[in-house]
């Protein structure tokens, strides 16, 4: 640390060192971050629920154990912001949907159990697109979250509140879920690190399901070392998720080496242009500069084409809504959540009124799409066909990985767009996930690492994609790239201006 900083500005590994050496208590760290939330969240609205009481108890417990001389996990005492999608025993979980308003889960998700075991301090729940369906967090029933770098722009989505909270130092670390880019795209748009691990690496038990063959939990952090520490905690076999992978979890921090000598990296043509339409030139230039940097650091890089990726969007927007229409059938006003108060003649009418009142537009649109795609007479034309093309996409990746250790490109074709810009045009919104969706379809791990800023000061993310269970190689390249520059040290800092309006400024 070159200058004394506020505790809330620290990364998890920096704070962890101070906590372990008893220079700082978990309570002091909590108070610092809480002050930050108090001053910044009115403008940003990253959080939809704050859990100060829970956090104080957790921080006190960590401080007590530390005072007794117990050796604690690396992240003990580190504050975390949780996407509103994990079941948290005793803490309301709504997926930012009216249909789950007031739902207090009677059990913890696997990843929440891990957080509790490791002594993390729960600040609260973060805003998201309803049931994780969206790319801007504008589909939330709880209002919009603003991008800390420019308050007139979206933070991305669906884990927009999580990414914004990390970017604005309203937490030390956060967690999201990624079905089509919902960790990586907001991380990119907010200038922080986000990782979607290999499908099956992290248990989905207790995570509200959107599209079960695509959903995966992952960290959103200020730097790559924090990402590795979080993955150490989250990854691992869980028999309660039948798709959980039963292979040992390495210490991911061992992969953090400041060089990429010998790594073969392919720049994916279809990430740079989808169906012939190129990404924003500033985004493209930043990604090419990042590739040049990786070459200087010892990697060999060239361009590779994966032609079936040009069909990712239609494949995804058949498979994900089809799975969602099935998963969301459970929200029927019987076991939990909202039930209509209107007088109904029978149970079907109760279901329909409850769901009409409880779901927002985008969720209804996807239930409609998925129901149609699975309905009699259309199954072969849509769902089966999409599943077959999904296989072709995965085979494209498998072929590329015979020649390359990693694939790279942009995370998002543009920097953060303006609030309201795409809300009326579903297809335009869907296209903002064009670079991230293929990775979910392939079940592969992918991450976003800051790689530059546009002329207007908006962050740009480098997309690094690995082989199945290739998280270590991905982290190594991300770390080497990050450490060769200073993008990860820049933070968005909302400040009050003369006219009382809050704006974001960059601070190195």
């Amino acid at each position, binding site marked *: 640390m070159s200058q004394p900083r506020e505790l809330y500005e620290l990364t998890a590994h920096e704070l962890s060192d101070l906590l372990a050496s008893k220079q700082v208590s978990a309570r002091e760290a909590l108070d610092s971050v809480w002050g930050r939330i108090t001053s910044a969240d009115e403008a940003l609205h990253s959080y939809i629920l704050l859990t100060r009481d829970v956090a104080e108890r957790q921080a006190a417990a960590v401080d007590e154990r530390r005072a007794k001389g117990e050796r604690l996990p690396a992240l003990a005492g580190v504050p975390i912001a949780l996407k509103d999608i994990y079941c948290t025993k005793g803490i309301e979980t709504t997926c930012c949907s009216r249909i789950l308003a007031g739902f*207090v889960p009677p*059990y913890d998700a696997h990843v929440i159990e891990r957080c509790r075991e490791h002594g993390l301090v729960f600040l609260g729940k973060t805003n998201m697109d309803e049931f994780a369906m969206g790319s801007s967090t504008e589909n939330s029933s709880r209002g919009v979250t603003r991008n800390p770098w420019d308050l007139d722009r979206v933070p991305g989505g669906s884990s927009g509140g999580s990414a914004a909270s990390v970017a604005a130092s309203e937490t030390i670390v956060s967690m999201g879920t990624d079905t089509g880019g919902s960790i990586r795209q907001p991380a990119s748009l907010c200038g922080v690190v986000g990782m979607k691990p290999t499908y099956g690496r992290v248990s989905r038990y207790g995570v509200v399901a959107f599209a079960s063959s695509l959903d995966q939990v992952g960290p959103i952090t200020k730097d790559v070392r924090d990402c590795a520490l979080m993955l150490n905690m989250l990854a691992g076999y869980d028999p309660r998720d039948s798709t959980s992978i039963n292979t040992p979890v390495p210490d991911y921090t061992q992969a953090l080496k400041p060089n990429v000598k010998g790594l073969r990296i392919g720049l994916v043509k279809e990430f740079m242009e989808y169906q012939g339409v190129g990404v924003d030139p500033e985004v493209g230039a930043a990604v090419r500069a990042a590739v040049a940097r990786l070459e200087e650091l010892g990697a060999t890089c060239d361009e590779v084409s994966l032609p079936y990726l040009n069909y990712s969007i239609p494949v995804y927007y058949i498979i994900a809504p089809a799975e969602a229409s099935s998963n969301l059938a459970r929200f029927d006003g*019987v076991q939990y959540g909202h039930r209509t108060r209107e007088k109904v003649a029978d149970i079907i009418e109760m279901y*329909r009124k409850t769901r009409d009142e409880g779901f927002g537009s985008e969720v209804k649109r996807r239930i409609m799409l998925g129901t149609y795609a699975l309905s009699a007479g259309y199954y072969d034309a849509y769902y089966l066909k999409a599943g077959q093309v999904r296989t072709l996409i995965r085979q494209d990746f498998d072929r590329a990985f015979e020649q390359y250790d990693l694939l790279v490109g942009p995370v998002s074709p543009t920097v953060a767009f303006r609030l309201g810009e795409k809300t009326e045009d579903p297809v335009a919104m869907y296209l903002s996930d064009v670079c991230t969706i293929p990775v979910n379809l392939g079940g592969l791990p992918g991450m976003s690492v800051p790689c530059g800023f546009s002329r207007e000061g908006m962050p740009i993310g480098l997309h690094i994609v690995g082989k199945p269970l290739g998280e270590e190689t991905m982290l190594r390249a991300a770390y080497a790239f990050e450490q060769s520059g200073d993008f990860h040290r820049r933070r968005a800092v909302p400040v009050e201006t003369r006219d009382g309006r809050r704006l974001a400024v960059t601070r190195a």
Partner: protein
Amino acid sequence: MLLTPEEVDHVALLGRLELTSEERERFTDQLNSILEHFEQLGQLDTAGVPAMSHAIAMSNVLREDVPAPSLSPEEALQNAPDQASGCFRVPRVIE
């Protein structure tokens, strides 16, 4: 047009949704524009290609059928919008 307003109504019933007339109109337009975007998949020859439904090659993940701790009836019912005699209560199902 691939989908008529009447078909939209039928899909809404299957999906247990109730649409206002404004939603019905908007969804008919939007679903059609999304379905048009899907048409391009028809160009691809996928004869003989297996459908991939899961990202990792796993099948028949089995375990012994043994009792394990689960939620108590009180916990299971704690979020119920309506309950009676330890059960979830719903409107009439059968005439």
